[in-house]
């Protein structure tokens, strides 16, 4: 009976796998190859892992503005280990940037790019650019506020290109505005074009690496070359295992942030790029107005050109870093410059509230949404899902119309609820739904819920708290700093009695005395 060895022999005779295996494992390495030479293997591992985790995420992702955010929310909140895989992909991207820069720094310090390895270096620089393009295109895909606004900035940077700026930006957007077509083309680039480019460049890089061999230590040592396996393979394996352990620890410990869903009408959002683009973002601040292209094009272009041309600028055969002072100094200046800019950018980042944290309007909305008027249809076994499980996929005006009069939007669903809902109540319910959509859970106990409900039912029609409501009257987010409960209660009862020129209507006839007192207490506590 033929055994496994026979099968392998047969396969070898048809394919030559034994020679291939030997070619891979017995690669002769110059003496003195040490731990500095594991960085490329780490990078290769991380890139492969990124392809795998990305493929798995793609099984859940939908590249359309109506669905992208919810599909990412679903994989994070509902798929077993989904948040972990997203963590691997998210932190993996940062790891790749770090590993790539470390790998390049090693190559620069060791002078490994020198003849005959100039083209190997060029493929490496191209790989770094591809990695950056991956990071940039991947950033838009979750379709949250951060994604939307950071991409707006990216596209506007491209728009500052002299002469063709407008055309470039339009092609990047797929039209005149950032929307469905933008998301689709960035997604296609991220999962189709760039992976092909990555694969081609990695293969070219590895082929050239094997063709010229590893450069080895700065000063060549005497002795016989050692095969890759097992001497260097064990170093690679240990290093990869250490990096992997660190990556899974991060992915298991930290939740990848997901902001509220992209809202093109929200002008208050301050966009921030990912940390590895922060230095460029910071640079932009020092070149305002017409000088902007200096920060967006000239400086980054010059840096990339300088880095790419290093092997042609630094042509002497000397590899020792101590004897290549100019190159080492120039690269150090670049590294320190990028580091300082990144630090300044980090220091300047605004603090952000968790998108799932309930605001007063959302708490009021949760109260209105548990109302019998909604639950008549929104219940298990009912005509629609329970409101707590409902994810809004329509725009705000649609939802407001539906909440006021369900029959108006879905004819035949049911009669309008008696008295309908006031617009401010509808807005509260939308705020509640948005918070649910962002993964928030309504708090079980709230201080002075009555006051909050009155605010949601009446005040939010003209006033804003925590950025929610309608801006007709003053923002009440911190009204308690200036006014106490007693003053507020008198004012709300009849503003004209306090100030004859007041625009605000009197509420003493519309609210019960205890409601008046509750809302005054709620507002007075806003400090």
């Amino acid at each position, binding site marked *: 009976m033929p055994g496994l060895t026979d099968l392998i022999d047969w396969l070898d005779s048809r394919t030559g796998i034994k020679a291939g295996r030997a070619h891979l494992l017995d690669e002769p390495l110059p003496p003195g190859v040490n731990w500095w030479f594991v960085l490329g293997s780490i990078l290769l591992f991380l890139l492969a892992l990124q392809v*795998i985790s990305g493929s798995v995420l793609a099984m859940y992702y*939908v590249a359309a503005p109506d669905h992208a955010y919810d599909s990412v929310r679903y994989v994070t909140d509902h798929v077993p280990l*989904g948040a972990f*895989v997203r963590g*691997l992909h998210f932190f993996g991207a940062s790891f790749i940037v770090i590993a790539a820069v470390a790998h390049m720094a090693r190559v620069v310090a060791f002078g490994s790019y020198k003849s005959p390895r100039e083209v190997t270096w060029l493929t490496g620089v191209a790989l770094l650019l591809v990695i950056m393009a991956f990071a940039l295109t991947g950033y838009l895909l979750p379709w949250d506020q951060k994604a939307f606004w950071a991409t707006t900035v990216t596209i506007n940077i491209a728009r500052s290109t002299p002469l063709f700026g407008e055309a470039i930006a339009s092609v990047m957007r797929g039209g005149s505005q950032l929307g469905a077509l933008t998301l689709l083309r960035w997604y296609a680039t991220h999962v189709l074009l760039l992976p092909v480019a990555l694969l081609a460049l990695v293969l070219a890089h590895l082929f050239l690496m094997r063709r010229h061999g590893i450069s080895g230590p700065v000063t060549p040592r005497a002795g016989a070359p050692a095969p890759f396996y097992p001497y260097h393979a064990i170093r690679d*394996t240990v290093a990869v*295992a250490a990096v992997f352990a660190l990556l899974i620890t991060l992915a298991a410990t930290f939740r990848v942030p997901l902001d509220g869903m992209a809202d093109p009408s929200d002008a208050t959002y301050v966009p921030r790029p990912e940390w590895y683009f922060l230095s460029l973002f910071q640079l932009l601040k020092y070149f305002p107005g017409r000088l902007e292209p200096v920060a967006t094009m000239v400086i980054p272009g010059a840096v990339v050109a300088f880095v790419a041309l290093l092997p042609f600028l630094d042509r002497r055969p000397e590899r020792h870093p101590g004897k290549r002072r100019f190159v080492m100094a120039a690269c150090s200046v670049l590294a320190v410059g990028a580091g300082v800019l990144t630090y300044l950018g980090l220091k300047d980042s605004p603090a952000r509230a968790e998108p799932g944290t309930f605001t007063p309007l959302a708490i009021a909305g949760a109260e209105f949404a548990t109302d019998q008027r909604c639950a008549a249809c929104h219940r298990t076994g009912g*005509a629609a*899902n329970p409101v707590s499980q409902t994810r809004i996929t329509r725009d705000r005006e649609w939802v407001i119309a539906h909440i006021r009069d369900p029959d108006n939007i879905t004819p035949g669903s049911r009669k309008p609820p008696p008295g309908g809902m006031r617009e401010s109540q509808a807005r509260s319910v939308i705020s509640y739904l948005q918070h649910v959509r962002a993964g928030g859970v309504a708090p079980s106990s709230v201080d002075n819920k009555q006051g909050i409900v009155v605010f949601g039912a009446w005040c939010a029609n003209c006033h804003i708290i925590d950025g929610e409501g309608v801006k007709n009257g003053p923002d009440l987010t911190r009204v308690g700093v200036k006014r106490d409960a007693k003053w507020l209660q008198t004012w709300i009862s009849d503003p004209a009695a306090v100030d004859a020129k007041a625009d605000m209507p009197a509420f003493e006839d519309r609210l019960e005395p205890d409601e008046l007192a509750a809302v005054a207490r709620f507002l007075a506590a806003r400090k």
Partner: protein
Amino acid sequence: MVIQTAIGATVAFVMTRTVIGRALGAAQTSWWPAATMADLIEGEPTPVTIRRAQTDGYRQTVNREVVFLIRTKDQVTALSSTCTHLGCRVSWDAEAALLKCPCHGGKFDRSGVVKAGPPPAPLARFPTRIESGQVMVEL
């Protein structure tokens, strides 16, 4: 070798688990109002469309499910309209008194038993109950 296997096994486990996701979980059922007893004719399969709000992955959908209700005195049987052969939609042929599948000629009688053609099993039945004249079906 041990380290490589450990890394490979970890990646394989995590990815496989995520790919499986919630695919193997049991489907959730609940009771849906289907018809009133007065709508049903004794012994005659009546197709009713049940609107059921469901979770479809990351989104909510309202599926329309066609079920045949057959009344026998005070009892109601609910038959699936999905042919057990390859999943086409069967319809009631009153003249032949058979539920017929348009795809490969499967035929079922009014209790769902296969009378002709390739179907390997009778039509699926859903639990029913009657609440003050309202027929409820669990699916």
